[in-house]
């Protein structure tokens, strides 16, 4: 299995994706749309195909909501997409971390 070659090919694929996405949504939003849905999917599930579908679906839903909110409030669309993505990331990942912390804390009090 050519691991080095696959790693290099993946970096080139990432470069092509980032450059094409920069043309469409700007250089600052690419980072948000690339990582936040994938981080949410990584937190929620551990099955690869489910997480892939969830990441793609979440990214599409975030984009639609962001563009709609941008249409009705007048802010640039990248701002609204980033806002939706960040709020959902904080809600899901932050909520799960707080839930883990609360569960561990409560079970540590049992003698």
């Amino acid at each position, binding site marked *: 299995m050519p691991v080095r070659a696959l790693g290099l090919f993946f970096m080139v694929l*990432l470069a092509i994706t980032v450059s094409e996405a920069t043309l469409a949504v700007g250089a600052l939003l690419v980072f948000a749309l690339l990582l936040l849905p994938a981080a949410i999917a990584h937190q929620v599930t551990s099955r690869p195909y489910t997480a892939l579908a969830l990441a793609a679906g979440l990214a599409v839903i975030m984009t639609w909501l962001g563009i709609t909110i941008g249409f009705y409030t007048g802010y640039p669309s990248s701002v609204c997409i980033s806002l939706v993505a960040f709020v959902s990331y904080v809600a899901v990942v932050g909520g799960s971390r707080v839930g883990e912390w609360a569960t561990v804390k409560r079970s540590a009090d049992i003698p």
Partner: protein
Amino acid sequence: MNVIVAGVLPPFTLNLWQDISAMLQYDFMRQALLVGTILSVVAGLVGYFVVLRHQAFAGESLSDVAFTGALGGAALGFNPLASLLGTTIVVAIAMGGFGERLRGRDVAVGTVLAWQQHGGCRCARLVSSSWCCWRSP
């Protein structure tokens, strides 16, 4: 606190279907939603592997390099889209060539990134003021 809002906002009734159909009758909105959908699917799929491989810093630096590459190409006279793609691919190959040793080279990548952003600001000045760096103005 001043909130900057667009001059003329579309009417927001509480009839959801009417709002969405009013939004979709603009050509640029349909185009934006179509482009956004295709782009989000690809970004979600590629981003999942970026998260798994802990290469978030590489993705962030690639987007900054894209900005600098486009401006540098425009300052030098090339087509900015071609220079965008070319610069990003070259930097990605340079990063991928390190393999797993990228984790120890955060400082080197960050230094190159700072130089790239400085170069991008200079190229933005070159492009916006139509002042060429090798010809007398």
